[in-house]
């Protein structure tokens, strides 16, 4: 008892740091962003980098407000955010859903069925080794510019992490749990839903989250090809008009949407599945 107390006293800093609700914990994540903003402010204040390359925080902030809340027609980008975000989110959702629709069942199959694993793994790993951007020219030839190409790129890129993580999770569910289930009267097919998927849930969710993150990356790639709207399109458009402030606004908004969608995904899974709530 005594020894532990002494240790705690010496390790005061570590203690605060590790406490789940310590003030340090809510403070620490903001240190880097704060430093970054200070640096940015100083750089533009003293014109170390010229404004046409790196606009000031204030200019970017104003551009952002204009982009999100301006009246359409007021300026080149005024008020476009909602349409762009809506379109982009729709594309991510569609591509990501497609990836999950194929990734989870195929992952489960190759995690549990040896023949399936042998059939799929070499081909899928070979495809996975191809950088996603290589598909862009082919996709543009096949699907033209716009929605279909974006969908294809997003679905393809998000598929691999979902498939691989699901397979790993499915493989790791202990055979003893299936025996226990069978002994308690679970039929073979029911075991997929009552034992396999819950048991593999942490991996499946990890795969989905990785896949969703990648979806946003490939969304932008798809939209850069020159579609009329979407966050990627805005960034591309702004580049041609030399509006660095809008490019930065676009980047920040994609980061925000990416993070929000990740939280939403985890939240929905926690809400819907005991296993996600209790294991992940």
């Amino acid at each position, binding site marked *: 008892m005594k020894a532990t107390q002494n240790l705690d006293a010496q390790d005061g800093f570590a203690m605060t740091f590790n406490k789940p609700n310590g003030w340090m914990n809510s403070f620490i994540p903001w240190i880097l962003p704060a430093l970054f903003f200070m640096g940015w402010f100083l750089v533009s204040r003293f014109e170390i980098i010229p404004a046409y390359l790196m606009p000031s925080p204030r200019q970017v902030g104003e551009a952002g407000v204009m982009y999100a809340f301006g009246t359409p027609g007021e300026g080149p980008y005024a008020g476009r955010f909602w349409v762009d975000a809506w379109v982009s989110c729709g594309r991510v959702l569609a591509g990501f859903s497609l990836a999950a629709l194929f990734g989870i069942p195929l992952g489960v199959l190759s995690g549990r069925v040896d023949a399936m694993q042998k059939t799929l793994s070499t081909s899928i790993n070979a495809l996975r080794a191809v950088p996603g951007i290589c598909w862009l020219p082919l996709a543009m030839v096949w699907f033209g510019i716009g929605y279909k190409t974006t969908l294809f790129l997003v679905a393809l890129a998000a598929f691999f992490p979902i498939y691989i993580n699901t397979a790993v999770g499915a493989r790791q569910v202990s055979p003893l749990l299936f*025996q226990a289930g069978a*002994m308690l*009267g679970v039929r073979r097919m029911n075991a997929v839903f009552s034992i396999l998927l819950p048991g593999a*849930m942490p991996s499946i969710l990890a795969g989905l989250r990785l896949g969703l993150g990648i979806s946003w990356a490939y969304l932008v790639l798809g939209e850069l090809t020159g579609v009329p709207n979407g966050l990627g399109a805005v960034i591309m458009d702004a580049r041609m008009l030399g509006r660095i402030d809008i490019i930065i606004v676009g980047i920040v908004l994609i980061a925000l949407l990416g993070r929000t969608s990740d939280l939403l995904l985890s939240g929905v899974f926690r809400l819907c599945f005991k296993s996600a709530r*209790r294991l992940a």
Partner: protein
Amino acid sequence: MTTQLKLIPGHKKELQAPPVLQVSKLSKVFKTGDGPMTVLQDVHFQVAEGEFLCVLGPSGCGKTTLLNVLAGFEKPSAGKALLEETPIMESGPDRCVVFQEDTLFPWLTVKENIAFGVKGLSKKEKREKTNHFLDLVGLTPFGDYLPREISGGMKKRVSLARVLILQPRILLMDEPFGALDAQTREEMQDLLLSLWNQFHHTIVFITHDIDEAVALADRILVMQKDPGMIAKEIRVRLSRPRERTESSFQDYCKALYQALKKPQP
């Protein structure tokens, strides 16, 4: 013979009943990298209604394999295993297993684990039944805990409750208390005996622990290794509750120790 009959007082009709479990000339051969390996050879025994049978043997002698055949997880290579004269084909809730390892579903609470196999009841009936069995194993305050939040002994209680609730014809237990500390193990043995005294389950209990076998069993089958077969059968004629310190208890332990040690012809 007589000791086994007195376990079910007042059930005259069942005294003539056929054995619950009949294992005859059972063999199991595994194909391995270096040829076939005979793990069980000509295992032959019966278990009567309400009997507490222990199978005692050194590790690797095929105890788990025997239990896997009885549970229906493995098919015998030769011979038969009959549950009430029906051949055992696949696993099912009439032959419930308490495993050596922890096999609770980690995403379900204690209560949900216990209720897992219960079917065909209304929500309310199911809840009441679950609470009843939760209480039987002394875990009422822990019903909403997750498996990772409770101790090893408590997990075993849950494992026991989730099979007892299904009222299996036979209870198969594979070194269930092997991983517990000595004190918890004795608590669990006492719990199991008190439940058995109330409900007269038919139990096949596998162990490598001589003390445990003598404390629990009506009859002990001693298994030998390479190949796994039954070397000796000992009926434990001790009154219950049994005292480990008594000399008659110790005599049984010595006899079993000799039986396990004796080189087989």
